[in-house]
C-alpha cells in the first residue's frame, strides 16, 4: 500500500496564541477517501489548505506524494505539489473572464506545456464524462452552481492529479443541486481517486469514505472508519456534533 499523504504534528497558531491546528497527524493511502468533519471554525479548511501550500504552518511536517514540506516555505516544492494535487473550492472559484473550456485548459497549457488541441480534447472528454460538454463555450456565470462546481472538478482533473482536495464542495449549492456534485465525486472515488474531502454530508461520508477525521478547535478528536464513527463514535464531542447535524 502506497502512502500518499503523511501529516505529522501539524501546528499552526494565530497571533493571539490560539491554535488553528494543534498537533494534527494522519496518513492517507493511495486510492482511499479521507473525510474531514468538524464544527465551523474547527480548522478543517485550514488543514486541507496546508496540503497544497495555500496555508503555511508553524510546526510539524507534511509529506505529500513523497515531497516533504515543513514550516520553512519552499516555493519550488509547493509548486511541485500543486502540479500533482488538484483542489475544488466551496465557492467554485472559476475564472469568470474565461470560457468553461479555457478554464479547464489554462493549467495544462501553461503549467504542463501541453499542446492546445491535446488539452482541449482531454478537457472535452472530461466534460462529457460529467455530462456538461455542451457548456464548453459558455462562461461560468451562464451555468448553475452545480454545473460550475462540476466544471471546477474537471478543471482540477485536467492536470491528471494523484490527489484531489475538496473544501466543502457542496456548501454553496442549492439543496437540489448538491447530489449532482456528490455523484460526480462518488464516481471519482469508485474509479480509485485518492481524495481528501471536507464536508458536512453524512450520507456521502458514510458511503464513500474510508476514514473520517473529526476535528475540533484544531485538535484531532478521533480518526475512525465511517462505520464506527457514525454509529458508535468513541468521543463525547463527536457524538454531540453528529446529533447537531442530524437535527438540521
Amino acid at each position, binding site marked *: 500500500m502506497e502512502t500518499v499523504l503523511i501529516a505529522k504534528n501539524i501546528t499552526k497558531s494565530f497571533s493571539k496564541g490560539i491554535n488553528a491546528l494543534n498537533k494534527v497527524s494522519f496518513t492517507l493511502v493511495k486510492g482511499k477517501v479521507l473525510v474531514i468533519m468538524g464544527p465551523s471554525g474547527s480548522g478543517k479548511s485550514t488543514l486541507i489548505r496546508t496540503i497544497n501550500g495555500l496555508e503555511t504552518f508553524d510546526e510539524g511536517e507534511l509529506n505529500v506524494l513523497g515531497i516533504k514540506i515543513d514550516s520553512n516555505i519552499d516555493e519550488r516544492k509547493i509548486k511541485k505539489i*500543486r502540479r500533482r494535487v*488538484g483542489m475544488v*473550492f466551496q465557492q467554485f*472559484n472559476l475564472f469568470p*473572464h474565461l470560457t468553461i473550456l479555457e478554464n479547464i485548459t489554462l493549467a495544462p497549457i501553461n*503549467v504542463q506545456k501541453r499542446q492546445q488541441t491535446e488539452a482541449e480534447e482531454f478537457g472535452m472528454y472530461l466534460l462529457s464524462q460529467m455530462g456538461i460538454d455542451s457548456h464548453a463555450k459558455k*462562461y461560468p456565470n451562464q451555468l448553475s452552481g452545480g454545473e460550475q462546481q462540476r466544471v471546477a472538478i474537471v478543471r482540477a482533473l485536467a*492536470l491528471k492529479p494523484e490527489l484531489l482536495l475538496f473544501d466543502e464542495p457542496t456548501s454553496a449549492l442549492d439543496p437540489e443541486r448538491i447530489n449532482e456534485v456528490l455523484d460526480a465525486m462518488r464516481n471519482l472515488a469508485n474509479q480509485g481517486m485518492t481524495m481528501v474531502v471536507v464536508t458536512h454530508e453524512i450520507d456521502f461520508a458514510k458511503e464513500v469514505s474510508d476514514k473520517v477525521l473529526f476535528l475540533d478547535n484544531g485538535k484531532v478528536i478521533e480518526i475512525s472508519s465511517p462505520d464506527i464513527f457514525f454509529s458508535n463514535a468513541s468521543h463525547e464531542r463527536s457524538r454531540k456534533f453528529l446529533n447537531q447535524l442530524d437535527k438540521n
Partner: protein
Amino acid sequence: MRLNIKFFLQIVLILILIIFVWIILNNLSINLSRTGIGFDFYWLSKPAGFSLAEKPLRYSPSDTYAWALFIGWINSLKVIFLSLIFATFIGILIGFARLNKNSFIGLISAGYITVIRQTPLLLQLMFWYFVGFLNLRNNNFLNFNQIINFSVQGIDLFGIKFSSEFSALLFGLSIFSSAFIAEVIRGGILSVPFGQWEAFRSLGLSERTGFIKIIIPQALPAFIPGLTSQYLNLAKNSTLAIAVGYSDIYAINDTIINQTGRAIECFIILLSSFLILNLLITNIMGLINKLIISSRK
C-alpha cells in the same frame, strides 16, 4: 397627498433656480454696462501684441488673439497628453509595487504615495521648477550620450527641446497624478476576490502567469472609473501651469483678460475648452470600458 407635496417642492426648486440665474445675469449686465466694454467676440481677430515663450507653431505678437489662444490650446494639450501617459506608466508601476506588503519595494512605494498625495500640487510644481530645473546651473546636468540632457534650459531628448517650464509642469503633473493612479490600480487589483488567487495557485500557475492571465483581466473594469476621474483631474490641474510661467490656455486667457478686460468672453472660452476636453476624455474612457467588456463576451 404625497404627490402634491412633491409637485410643490419641484415648483419651489424651479423658482429658486430662476431667481438665481436672474440675479447672476442682472449682475453681469450691470457690470458690463459699467465697464462700457460690451459683450462680443470681434476682438479675437485683433493682433494680440504679446509674445509667447512656448510656441509649437509659428507665432508673433502681430498675430491675432484667436491664434494666441489656439497656441495655448496646443500647449495645454501637449502637457496634458504627455503627463497622462507618464502618470499612467509610473502609476501602474507604483501600484503594482505597493501590493508587496512586506518588501522594501512595497515600503518605498507606500512612502511615495503618502508624500505625493499629502502635499499640494502647487508646491510640487514650484519644487520641480525652482529646485528641479532652475537649479541646474551648468548647462549639462545629466547627459547620457546625447540621448537625453537635463539642464537649466529644460530637457533635450534626441535634439527635441522641452523648456524648463514645460519640463517642470510635466514632472509635477505626472508624479502628482501617478500617486493617485497607483491607488486606483491597487484598489482595482484588490477588488478581485481572493479565491481567484487561490484558484490559480492551486492549479500550479506561477504568480506572474496568474497575475497576468487571471487577476489583471478581472481588475481592468475596476480601473476605468478611477482612471477617468484622475485623468479629468490631471487635465484641470494643468491650469496651474501659470505658476511656473508655462503658456497654456489658462495663462494666455489670463494675459488677454489683463490686456482687454474681456473677462466674460475669456471665461466662456476657458469653460468650453475644458468642457470639450474633459467630455472627450470621459467618452474615450467610456469607449475603452466598452471594449474591455465586449472582449469578454
